[in-house]
C-alpha cells in the first residue's frame, strides 16, 4: 500500500508538470484558435534565457544575493518572452489574419524550429544548471502508518503548488475579465472579432506573452529538475496526449489530463510493465490518448463539436 501511494504521488507530481506545458497549448488555442507547435521550443527558450541570465548577472552587477539575482533574471527572461511574443505577432501572425487553422499551424512549426536554433545560438547549447532555490531534500510522510513512510520530493510539492496557483489565475482571467472574453472571441472568429473593435494584434501579443510566461515557469521547474538542455523542448511531445485527453479548449482539462497521464504512466509502468517487458512508460500516454480519441474526440472537458451540415 505504501509503495502504491508513493507511485501514485510521484505520478501526480510528474502529471502536474505535464499540465504546465499543456497549459501553454491550451492558452494559445483558446485565445487564437492556433495549435501552437512552438510551445516546447518556447519552454526551452525561456529556460535557457533564465538560466543564462541567472549565470551572467551576478558577476556583471556584482550581486551576492541569490534570490535577488534570480528575481532579476526572471524579470529579464519574462521581458525576453514578451519581445518574442511581439516579434512572432509582427513577423508571422499579423500576416496570417483570417487564414485557415492549418496555415497557422504550419507557421508555428516554423517558429518552433527557429526558436530552437536561435535560442541555442544566443544562449549556448550546453546543459546548464538552474538553481532557483527549490528545496531538493526528500520528505517522508505517514511514517507512523507505513513502514519507512512515503517518500515525497519537496521540490515536486512546490512545483505542484506553483502550478495550482497559475492555473486558478488563468481560469479567472479567461472567465471573468473582459479581456478574457475578447480572447475567447478572437479564437472563435477573427473577422467578427475585428468588426466589433477587438484589436487582433494586441490580443495576440497578450496571449503569446501569457503563453511565454507559462513556458517560463514550466521551463524553470523542469530545468531545475533535469538541467536546462535541448531535451526540454521535447517535453512538449508529452503534453500532446495531455491536451487530447483534457480537451484543447479547457484550462482545467489540461490539469486533469496531465494528472491522468502522469499517474497512468507511473502506475502502468509499475503494475503492467513487467508483464509487457517494461519500458511502457514511454508510450503509454500516447496509447491512452489514442483510445480516448475514439470515444471522446473533443476530450474530457473540450467544447462539443457542433457542425451544421
Amino acid at each position, binding site marked *: 500500500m505504501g509503495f502504491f501511494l508513493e507511485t501514485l504521488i510521484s505520478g501526480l507530481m510528474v502529471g502536474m508538470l505535464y499540465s504546465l506545458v499543456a497549459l501553454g497549448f491550451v492558452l494559445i488555442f483558446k485565445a487564437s484558435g492556433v495549435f501552437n507547435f512552438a510551445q516546447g521550443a518556447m519552454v526551452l527558450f525561456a529556460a535557457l534565457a533564465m538560466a543564462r541570465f541567472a549565470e551572467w548577472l551576478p558577476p556583471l552587477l556584482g550581486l551576492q544575493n541569490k534570490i535577488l539575482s534570480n528575481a532579476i533574471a526572471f524579470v529579464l527572461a519574462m521581458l525576453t518572452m514578451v519581445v518574442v511574443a511581439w516579434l512572432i505577432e509582427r513577423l508571422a501572425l499579423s500576416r496570417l489574419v483570417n487564414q485557415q487553422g492549418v496555415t497557422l499551424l504550419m507557421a508555428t512549426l516554423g517558429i518552433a524550429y527557429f526558436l530552437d536554433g536561435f535560442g541555442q545560438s544566443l544562449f549556448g547549447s550546453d546543459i546548464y544548471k538552474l538553481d532557483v532555490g527549490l528545496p531538493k531534500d526528500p520528505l517522508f510522510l505517514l511514517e507512523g502508518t507505513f513502514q519507512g513512510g512515503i517518500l515525497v520530493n519537496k521540490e515536486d510539492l512546490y512545483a505542484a503548488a506553483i502550478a495550482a496557483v497559475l492555473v486558478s*489565475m488563468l481560469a*479567472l*482571467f479567461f472567465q*471573468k*475579465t*473582459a*479581456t478574457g*472574453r*475578447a480572447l*475567447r*472571441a478572437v*479564437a*472563435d*472568429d477573427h*473577422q*467578427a*472579432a*475585428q*468588426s*466589433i*473593435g*477587438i*484589436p*487582433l494584434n494586441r490580443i495576440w501579443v497578450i496571449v503569446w506573452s501569457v503563453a511565454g510566461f507559462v513556458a517560463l515557469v514550466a521551463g524553470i521547474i523542469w530545468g531545475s529538475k533535469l538541467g536546462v538542455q535541448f531535451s526540454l523542448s521535447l517535453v512538449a511531445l508529452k503534453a500532446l496526449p495531455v491536451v487530447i485527453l483534457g480537451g484543447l*479548449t479547457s484550462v482545467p482539462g489540461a490539469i486533469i489530463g496531465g494528472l491522468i497521464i502522469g499517474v497512468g504512466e507511473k502506475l502502468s509502468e509499475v503494475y503492467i510493465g513487467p508483464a509487457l517487458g517494461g519500458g511502457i512508460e514511454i508510450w503509454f500516454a500516447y496509447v491512452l490518448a489514442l483510445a480516448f480519441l475514439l470515444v471522446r474526440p473533443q476530450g474530457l472537458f473540450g*467544447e462539443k463539436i*457542433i457542425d451544421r451540415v
Partner: protein
Amino acid sequence: MSKRIVGDVVLAVEEISLAFGGVKALTGISFDVREHEVRAIIGPNGAGKSSLLNCINGVYTPQHGRIRFRGKSFARMNPHRAAVMGIARTFQSLALFNGMSVLDNIMTGRNLRMRTNLLLQALRFGPAQKEELEHREFVEKIIDFLEIQAYRKTPVGRLPYGLQKRVDLARALAMEPLLLLLDEPMAGMNLEEKQDMCRFVLDVNDEFGTTIVLIEHDMGVVMDISDRVVVLDYGRKIGDGTPAEVRSNRDVIDAYLGTKH
C-alpha cells in the same frame, strides 16, 4: 418620440474601385447615406454588394476612391478603426463566437467601451464590478428589445439559424453604433422570421436613430423598409433613388429580368 429625422450626409463613398487580380469587383461606385436613413444596396448575385460593405468597414481596401465618414475622409479604413468610429456590422454567413453563450457574445460588443483594468476585472472589485453591471444592464435592454431573453445562457452554436441572425444583430447593437451595416440580414429565413427581422430593423432605426445600410435580396422587403436604394450590377452602379424611382428604372429592370436580344 421617434428620433428619426433624416439629416445630413454621414457616409459618402466616393468613386470606389476594387479589383481582385484581374477581376473587377467594384468600378467607380459613389453614393451617400444620410443620418437616420435606411439605405439598401441591392443587385444580382456577384454584383459586388458585400465587397462594397467590406470596403466601408475596412476589411477590403479599395484601389481607388475614398470613404468619408462624419466629415473625415479616408483612403483606407481598417476594421478596428471603423469600430472605434462607430461603424458596426453583421455578417452574411454568420460570424458569431460559437463557443460562447448568447450573453457573452453580446457582451463582446461592449468591449470597446470597457475602461477599468484587468486586475480589477479579475477580482470583480470596485469600479470594475460597477462597470460590468452597467454594461450588462445595457445588454439586457438589447436582449429584451430583440426578444431573445430565453436564450441568454445558451451556447450560440446550438441556436436555430434565425435566432443566430438575431444575436449577430444584438452584438452589433451593443456597440451603440452610429452606422449599422447589415449584410443580408434576412437571407435564408422563412416568412415569419423575415417579418420579425424587418420589424427589428425598423425599430432600431426608429428608436435608436441608428443609420442603417443593408444588403438584401428580397425585393419586397427592400421596397418596404428602405428610404433610398442603390442598385449594383457587375460592380457598377446602375440605379440610385427612392424605391419607387428604382422600380421604374429601365436598367434595373433589365438587370433583374434580363433583356431581349
